[in-house]
């Protein structure tokens, strides 16, 4: 059990896919303009990483080694399309807001990375936990970055005007992708100054 707990906690901080492994940067630049979009994107990625890790782990002993990447890709693509279709049917407004980015979960390095590094060699339950935890670690950073970008860029949080009352002028730079990268850099900086063991000599 202690092992499962470790599997779950590691991707959240010590082995965070964005700030430590620096994977999934592209989508974290794209969907962090607004908090709502970032939250749904986080949930979608959690579902995709968790379920595709689970499926690949169940199939792991049968997958021919030479075509394993293709098989993984097929599984991941299926999950992403299912998520997209379900959102279109049951959460249409949110699907419209995320538009192309749902489809782009396929290209998110975290999903394939965790399958290759973890699910291919582990039992289904730890794989599921690893997948979900990595999705959570990704989502956590997404929400932190989106919080600052929406607050300082549009003066709102979840679309509610928060800073308008005190006469804040929106910072247009916050909305543009480069600022996400700078914020991400700040998050990494803060994390490394707290967790000293992450610092390279």
């Amino acid at each position: 059990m202690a092992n499962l707990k470790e599997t779950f906690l590691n991707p959240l901080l010590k082995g965070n896919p964005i700030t430590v492994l620096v994977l999934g940067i592209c989508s974290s630049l794209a969907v962090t303009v607004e908090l709502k979009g970032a939250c749904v994107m986080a949930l979608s990625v959690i579902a995709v990483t968790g379920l595709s890790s689970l499926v690949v782990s169940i199939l792991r002993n049968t997958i021919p080694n030479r075509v394993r990447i293709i098989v993984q890709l097929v599984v991941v693509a299926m999950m992403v399309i299912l998520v997209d279709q379900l959102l279109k049917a049951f959460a249409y407004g949110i699907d419209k807001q995320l538009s192309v980015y749902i489809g782009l979960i396929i290209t998110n390095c975290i999903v394939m990375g965790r399958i290759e590094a973890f699910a291919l060699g582990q039992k289904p339950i730890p794989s599921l936990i690893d997948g979900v935890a990595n999705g959570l670690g990704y989502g956590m950073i997404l929400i932190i970055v989106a919080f600052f970008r929406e607050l300082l860029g549009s003066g709102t949080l979840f679309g509610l005007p928060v800073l308008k009352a005190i006469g804040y002028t929106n910072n247009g730079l916050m909305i543009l992708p480069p600022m996400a990268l700078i914020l991400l850099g700040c998050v990494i900086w803060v994390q490394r100054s707290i967790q000293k063991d992450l610092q390279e000599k």
Partner: protein
Amino acid sequence: MNTNSNTYTVVYTTIIVIIVAAILAFAAMSLNGRQVANMKAETIGQILKAAKIESGESNAEIINAYKSQIAEAYTVDLTGAKKGELPAEDATIFTTSQLKAQNYKIAGGESDATLPVYVFKNGTKVVPIYGAGLWGPVWGYVAVGTDGKIVGATFDHASETPGLGGKIKDDPAFSAQFDGKAFDFNDVVPFDIVKGGAPAGKVNAIDAITGATMTSKGLGEAVNAWARAYAPVLAAAPCCCEETQAEETTKTEE
């Protein structure tokens, strides 16, 4: 079993692909009805919002609001002559993909274009627009009142950048600029979306979106192309007052 043999690999991948295809086909078919209904309700919601008609959030509420408020929905050609009816009882509307097909005809100046017009009980006419933004199509609805002034407008897009071009949909302040403006068919362009700010007092111009020049430009072109196509209908707007008033009287009598 040797999982590395050629036969195994080919058979394995074939089976996996067939299973995945079957799951996806099943999901697509079983969810399709709901998805189409969502899209239709969304479009009707946009038409109602442009005409400033209150409706609820749910699909059923939106469709009921449309059915109770619509006076007449029909299609016209480029000369403004009526071509056909869009029956209100099942809330028939033009879908976005139908607008796309008509957009080609408008661009090509083909006279057999079929353009929808939605007339509400208060005399407001709602017409669609469709065109190209920066990353993909942009479309929307413009409502013109009986006095020829724009009542409201809503816009939507397939893949404009959220927070920049996406503001045509998400920023209420952008679409609110249309309220009270009017098309001027004697001007160079019937309607102008001006980068750097519209001149004060100009009745057919609004400000473009900062940081979204291409989207603003594309939207402006779309509005103008479709406004020209609808010119016979929209220019004739004031003359419909009598007809509408008559309709309203009959309604009160009922």
